[in-house]
């Protein structure tokens, strides 16, 4: 056997050490004696002097068989996930219309009062019929603009999709990314009826901060209505899960703590998960000087994650096999006109479209290849990096625009490891 190239060792509680492996995600606690053996003994000495320990290292991926390339293992997992999975993933934008005028919105330039036509809806349904894997998985993300402005389209299409899933015994799950303003109890019931049970809503802080950053198009505040709607979801808490995103930049650094406190005081933390999102200045949508850089945001995120009792598993550095939908060959984003994209950051940017749902083949294939043919395990820097399995080069959109975008754990792993082992043991 040989020790893994992806082992990290950190000081733990009571003189012990924490051993973590980024390729397998395994974590273990070592007493002083074992930590010293791991550090000082060669593989051969370990196997001879402490075969049980050597075997445990192998079982948990802290060591691998001699002759196996861990880089090949990472590449294999990445490629079979990217090209060999049986999940179809669609992000559908039923409208690019929006009722909000968020100050940092990257879709400002593409928002338009346009709703998906019946033709396009039918073409998407046909695409799902032809491409969803029988007895596989289908995941739908409803996106916008503001998708709840097109709830009737979501309702109609979801019912057709559910029927296909039923006939082909496809495991289905769906989510919606909404600003929450139109998420009344009636709307929630439509979502639940259609098994859209994960909802992402954005709230940027207290009333003053949120209303200043995320007003209606006419400038009116939205904080009160969103909270009223959130409270209305309480009665559905067994059927819904809400990701409450707090978009942060240098103007509302501490907002995520306030939102978390509010959720707890309203006793909604059993179904509402609060987390910070990083505002990015894409093109001219926002001032770069107001945004955090990766290192700054990483520290903010780590401090928040480690400050609370629950939810540490969402912050755990699990290995990735793909980065996101954009580098997954079976995933596609469809806009309201039926144009197809790899990443939802490119919605409405026609030169980045890879076709139309009515005419898919042979359109701007090079954009597709930029996303799905990148082999990060061949990158000179990344192939030597211990963070590679939990990073895979980071956000593909940023990678294409600016180059590799390292995992935020690179800035905060040590700090996380002061908290994670203790909290994971609970």
């Amino acid at each position, binding site marked *: 056997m040989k020790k893994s190239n992806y082992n990290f060792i950190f000081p733990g509680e009571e003189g012990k050490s924490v051993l973590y492996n980024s390729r397998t995600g395994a974590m273990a606690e070592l007493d002083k004696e074992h930590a010293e053996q791991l550090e000082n003994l060669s593989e051969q000495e370990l196997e001879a002097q402490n075969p049980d320990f050597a075997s445990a290292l192998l079982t948990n991926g802290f060591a691998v068989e001699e002759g196996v390339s861990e880089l090949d293992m990472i590449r294999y997992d990445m490629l079979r996930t990217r090209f060999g999975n049986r999940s179809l993933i669609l992000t559908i934008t039923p409208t690019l219309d929006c009722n909000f005028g968020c100050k940092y919105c990257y879709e400002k330039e593409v928002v338009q009062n346009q709703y998906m036509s019946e033709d396009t809806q039918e073409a998407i349904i046909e695409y799902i019929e032809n491409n969803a894997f029988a007895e596989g998985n289908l995941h739908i993300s409803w996106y916008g603009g503001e998708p709840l402005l097109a709830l009737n389209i979501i309702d109609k299409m979801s019912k057709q999709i559910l029927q296909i899933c039923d006939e082909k015994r496809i495991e289905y799950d769906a989510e919606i990314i909404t600003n929450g303003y139109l998420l009344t109890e009636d709307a929630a019931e439509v979502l639940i009826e259609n098994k859209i049970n994960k909802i992402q809503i954005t709230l940027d802080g207290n009333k003053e901060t949120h209303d200043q950053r995320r007003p209606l198009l006419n400038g009116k505040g939205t904080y009160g209505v969103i909270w009223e709607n959130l409270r209305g979801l309480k009665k559905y808490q067994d059927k819904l899960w809400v990701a409450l995103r707090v978009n942060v930049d240098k103007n509302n650094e501490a907002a995520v703590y306030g939102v978390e406190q509010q959720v707890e005081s309203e006793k909604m933390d059993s179904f509402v998960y609060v987390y910070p999102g990083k505002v990015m200045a894409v093109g001219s949508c926002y001032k770069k000087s107001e945004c955090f850089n990766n290192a700054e945001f990483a520290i903010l995120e780590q401090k928040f994650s480690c400050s609370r009792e629950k939810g540490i598993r969402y912050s755990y550095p699990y*290995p990735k096999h793909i980065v996101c939908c954009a580098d997954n060959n079976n995933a596609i984003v469809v806009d309201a006109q039926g144009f197809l994209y790899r990443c939802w950051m490119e919605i409405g940017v026609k030169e980045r479209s890879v076709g139309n749902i009515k005419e898919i083949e042979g359109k701007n294939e090079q954009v597709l290849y930029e996303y799905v043919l990148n082999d990060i395990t061949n990158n000179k820097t990344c192939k030597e990096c211990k963070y590679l399995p939990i990073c895979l080069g980071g956000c593909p959109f940023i990678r294409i625009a600016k180059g590799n975008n390292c995992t935020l754990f690179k800035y905060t792993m040590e700090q996380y490891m002061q908290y994670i082992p203790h909290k994971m043991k609970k």
Partner: protein
Amino acid sequence: MKVIVNKEERNLKNVRSACTLSITCEGHLCCPSLGSK
């Protein structure tokens, strides 16, 4: 050696979770793309 987190099962079940509000995906919960919307 006391294992706190088991090694990830290397099977395709992980693929599905990679597209949802998942702990293993850069999408959604930690996707920088959504930060500006």
